[in-house]
């Protein structure tokens, strides 16, 4: 399709949109439908609440010292768990403010003094991200049994990814590891019945969620119930079954990848720290990158999608960010995107010195600017980045189209805008040319159109027409990379929808592929903000209910509390009764099946020597 035709289509769509909206404006808004899964009618854009945003602002936070003392007292039995649920242990006020061209958080504990940390090196970037946040999802309803964690309870939304730790055992010995796998002296491992109960509970209240399940650990594939857990989640109707994995099992046992896929496993959230063996040396396996490549090949052969996950630490592996994204683009046939996770100083890192913490602190604004620098301005921090919660606008349309009879609400990632942001890019499988979607598609205005569509609530057919017009009128082929025509764009969508868009036949792989580049910044005790935890969309599902990701791994430390309450054996007893598992460590190479490699290529001249400071378990 040449540019002239594409421009004509665009202008016609534009005219059609405005004509429709003229009529739309003359008719009063219809009432939103009330689906079975929701606690009330679908929210119109003006009904969506937002947490306090902008700065200066005050929020509720934690004293990094008081919290550790409280947690230790509970684990040792000196204090009761009820104190944690009913009290305000270690809670203090914090102020978020702009100072010297940066956004910082400052808080003072009467006992331990003042704490300060960096939230953003670019206030303008952060302001834009917050401005693009469409608002919160429903308040939860009937969830008293699941969300019962006092001030750490989740109060909003339906969640996007339900994380379940299957085991704290691991086949690696990374340093550091936020859960201290293999070292804590006990085994915490869920039985299949417990996993089923947790999954059943997660759909027992409203809004009834259709979210992704992400099995984590430890190394989740070490759990004997991994495959059955994948199957059960799929049978329940969960949208996507994922695992935060180091991938060793898939590298060593190709058959396992096929079996996992058949059991329902969709996506590997894949620990991936660098594009050479040397860049992975902090994991203490000298040929780990080779193993990673083998895991990628085996998983792709079985049809499992892969999203590499990298924890980024300033002055440690921040220079790997650009090469990693380039690696993903160069191997876009095999990889679906990449998730960067700015470091969260938790677990063993809670004891980090102030000097090290300030030096190693990395924020989402660092990420946006580093990618801007590495790709010579091709990724624009102000144009291309959107909060993860922006997806909520799409979900609202989906919920409208699904109708009142739908059993589950759509996947809604409506987290706080400070929790994460992302860029979508399109890449050519053959030529590897690429561009951010926002370069040629006006996402901002498209989101506004979606609000108009859902607010007016004109029923399925009219909404569908409006969405189609909105899609067409915001695609500008002249700004797209050469070869990415409107037809190619439709092909991308057609592949993603298994051919439903173009007649239902199985589609040929499109020449272009859409990739997700995300930044997810988990909190630690210095950056903690209760306004973020209460709208967490990646809850940890445990025997003690669903707990915000940050409240579980950081905050008052629910992880240690829950694991101590439900440990199944001491490590020593476990090994005696069940046998030891292989742990790859000691900076030695691991034996890999001898097959020709690679199927994916490392970028030439990729820098070596920068060890990522990521934690285990797929890089949370």
């Amino acid at each position, binding site marked *: 399709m040449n540019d002239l035709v594409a421009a004509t289509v665009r202008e016609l769509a534009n005219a059609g949109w405005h004509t429709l909206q003229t009529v739309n404006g003359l008719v009063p808004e219809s009432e939103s439908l009330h689906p079975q899964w929701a606690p009330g009618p679908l929210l119109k854009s003006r009904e969506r609440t937002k947490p306090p945003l902008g700065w200066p602002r005050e929020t509720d936070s934690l004293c990094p010292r008081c919290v550790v003392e409280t947690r230790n007292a509970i684990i040792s039995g000196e204090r009761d768990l009820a104190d944690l649920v009913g009290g305000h242990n270690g809670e203090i006020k914090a102020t978020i403010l702009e100072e010297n061209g940066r956004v910082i958080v400052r808080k003072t504990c009467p006992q331990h003094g003042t704490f300060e940390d960096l939230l953003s090196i670019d206030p303008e970037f952060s302001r834009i991200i917050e401005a693009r946040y469409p608002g919160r999802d429903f308040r939860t309803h009937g969830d008293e049994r699941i969300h019962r964690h006092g001030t750490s309870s989740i109060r909003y939304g339906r969640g996007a990814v339900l994380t379940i730790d299957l085991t704290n055992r691991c*086949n690696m010995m990374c340093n550091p590891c936020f859960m201290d796998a293999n070292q804590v002296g006990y085994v915490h491992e869920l039985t299949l019945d417990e996993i089923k109960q947790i999954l059943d509970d997660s759909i027992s209240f409203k809004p009834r969620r259709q979210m992704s399940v992400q099995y984590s650990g430890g190394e989740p594939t*070490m759990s*004997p*119930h991994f*495959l*059955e857990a994948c*199957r059960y989640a799929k049978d329940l109707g969960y*949208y*996507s079954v994922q695992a935060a994995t180091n991938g*060793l*099992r898939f590298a*060593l*046992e190709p*058959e*396992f990848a*096929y*079996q*996992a*896929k*058949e*059991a329902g496993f*969709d*996506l590997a959230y894949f620990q991936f720290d660098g594009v050479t063996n040397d860049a992975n040396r902090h994991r203490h396996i000298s040929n780990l990158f080779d193993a990673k490549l083998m895991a990628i090949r085996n998983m792709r052969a*079985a*049809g499992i*999608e892969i999203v590499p996950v990298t924890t980024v630490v300033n002055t440690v592996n921040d220079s790997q960010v650009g090469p990693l994204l380039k690696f993903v683009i160069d191997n876009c046939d095999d990889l*679906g*995107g990449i998730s960067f996770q700015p470091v969260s100083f938790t677990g063993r890192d809670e004891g980090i010195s102030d000097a090290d913490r300030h030096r190693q602190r990395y924020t989402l604004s660092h990420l946006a600017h580093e990618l801007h620098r590495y790709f010579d301005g091709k990724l624009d921090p102000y144009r291309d980045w959107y909060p993860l919660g922006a*997806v909520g606008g*799409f979900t*609202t*349309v*989906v*919920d409208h*189209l*699904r109708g009142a009879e739908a059993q589950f609400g*759509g*996947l809604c*990632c409506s987290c706080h805008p400070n929790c994460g942001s992302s860029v*979508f890019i399109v890449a050519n499988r053959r030529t590897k040319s690429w561009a951010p979607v926002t370069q040629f598609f006006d996402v901002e205005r498209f989101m506004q159109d979606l609000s108009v569509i859902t607010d007016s609530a004109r029923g*399925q057919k009219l909404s*569908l027409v409006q*969405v*189609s017009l909105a899609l067409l009128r915001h695609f500008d082929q002249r700004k797209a990379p050469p070869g990415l025509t409107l037809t190619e764009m439709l092909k991308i*969508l*057609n*592949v*993603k*929808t*298994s051919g*439903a*868009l173009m007649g*239902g036949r*199985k589609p040929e792989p499109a020449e272009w592929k859409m990739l*997700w580049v995300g930044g997810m910044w988990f909190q630690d005790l210095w950056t903690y903000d209760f306004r973020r935890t209460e709208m967490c969309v990646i809850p940890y599902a445990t025997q003690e209910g669903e707990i915000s990701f940050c409240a579980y791994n950081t905050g008052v430390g629910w992880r240690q509390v829950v694991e101590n309450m439900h440990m199944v054996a001491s490590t020593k007893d476990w090994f005696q009764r*069940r*046998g030891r*598992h*292989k742990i790859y460590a000691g900076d030695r190479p691991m034996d890999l*099946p001898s097959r020709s490699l690679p199927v994916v290529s490392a970028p030439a001249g990729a820098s070596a020597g920068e060890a990522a400071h990521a934690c285990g378990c797929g890089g949370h």
Partner: protein
Amino acid sequence: MVHVEWLLLIGYIDSLFAERTERKDQPLDTVPETLNQLYLQAMRHHARDAAFLTRRDDRWQPTPDWRLDRQVIRLALYLQERAGVNPGDRIAIVAEPGPAWLVADLAGLAVGAVSVAVDPGLPSGRLLGALVDAGPKVIFASPTALAQLDGGRLALPGLAEVIAMDAAPRSDGVRTFGQVLDLGGTLDTAERAQAFRAQARGIAPDQAAICHHDVSVEGRVAWDELSQGDVAARIEQLWRDRPAQPGDRVYLATPAVTLAVRLALHACLGDGYSMVVLGAADRAAAEVDEIGPHRVVAAPSTLAELVRNAVVREPVAEAGGGWRARARRMLKRGREPPEYQALREALGGRVRAIDSTGPLDPALAERLRQIAAVGSAMD
């Protein structure tokens, strides 16, 4: 609303990664030298949704290949590392046919042991005698067999463990099948699983594989023993005589596991695309009607019962229904004689092959041949 589907997906961030892979639907056409290799090949095929179906809680429960394979690996690792079973040792399975029976059989074979099937319906004395003759290292026993065997408190020379096929944990200290799989689960690491596969693949064709204990009506005891290679050769013959097609359902209903049944089971499991439905002989008519199998493997008495259900109904004068309904009735009438149609319907409607696990009455065989190829699983 086709278009709704793609719009529904826009809101799903994960769908932006989703691309589906195709499953293979080509049959396996090479027969390896050993039964173990055949099994491993089938497990690599990834072409069927379920290896077999069993009825539980009034529903058909599928056991897909991945689940079957993992259970076999786990049980095999347990047998090797906890029960000390070595190649050449014997394991005895005293149980009715079912998923656990099959897993035990495959796990034993995979570690190179000789799998001995003993009829759990034997009287206590004969059962004990058969087990003494078999000299197993491990016995898998159903609850009824276990009751016959003094709750598993046996003093057989060389016997390391008795495993109960019960679902619920037992108070007498005998480990259940579930507990053993659970213990094997933590042994099931990538390294051990791969080592297990390599070992299973390396078992020689002349290694004894299955041993069958039969007691004739006159009380004579017979032991049939086949090597890994023998079984593979017989399966190849079965495949050649009665070729299956992708998606075939094989209905198997037999109260006891005879040698013929074992061969039929391994042949279906090993082709990589047939789904075995493990039915109950006393419910065969209803189950066949529900499943609509392409092949039926059953005892002569069960087949006779199915044939008795074939009742030719008088055509009812159906009025109206439109030209499509009238054309359908005319086509149906013109295709086969009514008695053939009745018989076909009694056997589920699409049966192509029927295997008897014992000698068939000639008249019954002749009747069945009207609609399908008839043979014995032992032919």
